[in-house]
């Protein structure tokens, strides 16, 4: 297996005079959770969008399993093995939980073109979707309309949809966002077990979760990576402390 699953090299994106990301080079290795942290406006969401293909980079490249995917769009990168979850749940709210995960399964199998056969008769799609629901603990809510789910359940469903893709790498944008203490703890436990399946590039504000999960942490400030290291490296970093707490920290 490749030493690096996902890597960025010198990624840059400017909006006018503002450099949202500036020469960002990070990598994601097999079995690890690599967290990206940084204050609001640091460029984390821009970076995620660049990695997943939702935003074209000005310069730099993105590699997935040693393959240059910079020129690929979002759906091509998804097919190449990138599983993304959104900061704000991007789910089909009118549809059932089951339909949402089936969407992922259909995408994973590249089989959306049958206009006549009921999706419930596609055994592969149904099995893959059911498996993802069971893993995140949403089997009991399969027929619930997505809009009627609690916030925590929506976060679980986000992850379930990504699971159906069986990706080579997960890119997760604040999966704990809006979760209470219990929800955050449950999600932390779940992500901890998920790393063996595929490494996770995790953007997260919940520092307890980050410190509990991350093998490595990169700190993004004003679009630049100012430090990368283990949890203890980051805790001990003067640069990080200064960036987060100010010059007098």
């Amino acid at each position: 297996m490749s030493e690096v699953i996902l890597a960025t090299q010198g990624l840059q994106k400017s909006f006018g005079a503002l450099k949202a990301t500036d020469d960002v080079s990070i990598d994601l290795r097999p079995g690890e959770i690599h967290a990206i942290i940084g204050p609001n406006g640091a460029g984390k969401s821009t970076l995620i969008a660049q990695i997943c293909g939702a935003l074209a980079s000005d310069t730099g490249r993105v590699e997935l399993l040693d393959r240059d995917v910079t020129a690929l769009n979002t759906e091509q990168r998804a097919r190449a093995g990138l599983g993304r979850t959104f900061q704000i749940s991007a789910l089909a709210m009118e549809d059932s939980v089951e339909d949402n995960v089936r969407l992922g399964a259909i995408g994973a199998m590249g089989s959306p073109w049958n206009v006549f056969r009921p999706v419930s008769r596609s055994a592969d799609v149904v099995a893959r979707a059911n498996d993802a629901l069971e893993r995140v603990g949403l089997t009991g809510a399969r027929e619930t309309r997505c809009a009627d789910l609690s916030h925590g359940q929506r976060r679980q469903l986000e992850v379930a949809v990504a699971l159906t893709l069986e990706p080579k790498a997960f890119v997760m944008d604040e999966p704990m966002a809006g979760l209470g203490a219990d929800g955050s703890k449950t999600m932390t436990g779940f992500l901890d077990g998920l790393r063996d399946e595929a490494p996770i590039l995790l953007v997260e504000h919940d520092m307890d979760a980050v410190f509990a999960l991350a093998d490595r942490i990169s700190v993004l400030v004003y679009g630049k990576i100012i430090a990368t290291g283990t949890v203890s490296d980051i805790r001990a970093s003067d640069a990080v402390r200064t960036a987060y707490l100010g010059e007098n920290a």
Partner: protein
Amino acid sequence: MIREGVINWAILLGLVALPLWAVFADEIFTITLTTRVVILALAAVGLNIALGIGGMVSFGHAAFFGLGGYAMGILAYHAQTYAALDFGIVEIEGTKSMPVIWLVATAISALAAWLIGLLSLRTTGVYFIMITLAFGQMFYYFAISWGAYGGEDGLSIYVRNGFPGLNTLVPIQFFGLCFVALCVALILQWRLRGSSFGLTLNAARQTPERVETVGLNPMKLKLLAFVISGAITGLAGALFADLNRFVSPAMFSWQLSGELIILIIIGGVGRLMGPVIGAMIFVALEHWLGGLTDFWHVYLGAILLFIVLFSRGGVIGFLTGKEGPHV
């Protein structure tokens, strides 16, 4: 509240019962009116696939309705004048055969929908509405200036086209043909909604970014839906032309595109039988209120206003107590 399935069957049975009663009561005009309902419903079923499931508010579906109509008109005109269609390198005979005309009408409409969709689907929201309106109006003005086929005055076809084994001049037989076409389109819409394609199309309407992140292209999904939608509306255009034995640029007009949208809103956006109940109400108002006053559209507007304000799920939503088809 009544279950939607019960309402759907009741609407279909009513649609069959009315012309059958008219046969016995010798109310031929009622059969013609019901046939008009069925054909408008068929056109709206086409639009409902794009609008109701795919979320594409096309204000130019009259383009496909008109193309279907003119496909019929031109083929039948050349058949009745015994003059072949001259394409320069090839000459094609006209025809009075409905199956052939339907095939040509749906193929041309599908092709036009593909081309229009390819350009229009790069936009969303009000821009999509405007660009589809612009395409519809392009066809409208082209038809007005197309002197070879009647220009502004339109084109009359003296004898209704034929269908093997049927006498299409008998109103109830022509109604039967149109009703079967509507049923086939309804079955297609019903099966499409429950298929992989319907599920992904429905998701593409609600959350296109999610659809992209599962490796699918929302635009391609919407384009196929738009093509299917255009083809069905084109077929309805061919039947409408046969019903009236007349085609005119009005078939391409933005008013007709608007009326198709209104039918769907009245019946219930995305509902299987929304277009049918919408067409029934529309034609009933057009006939009865139109007989009382020239300003019957005012009442139509009032109904539309009431539905938009108080019953977002249309008549079917009101009867079922469910605002949306998926709620």
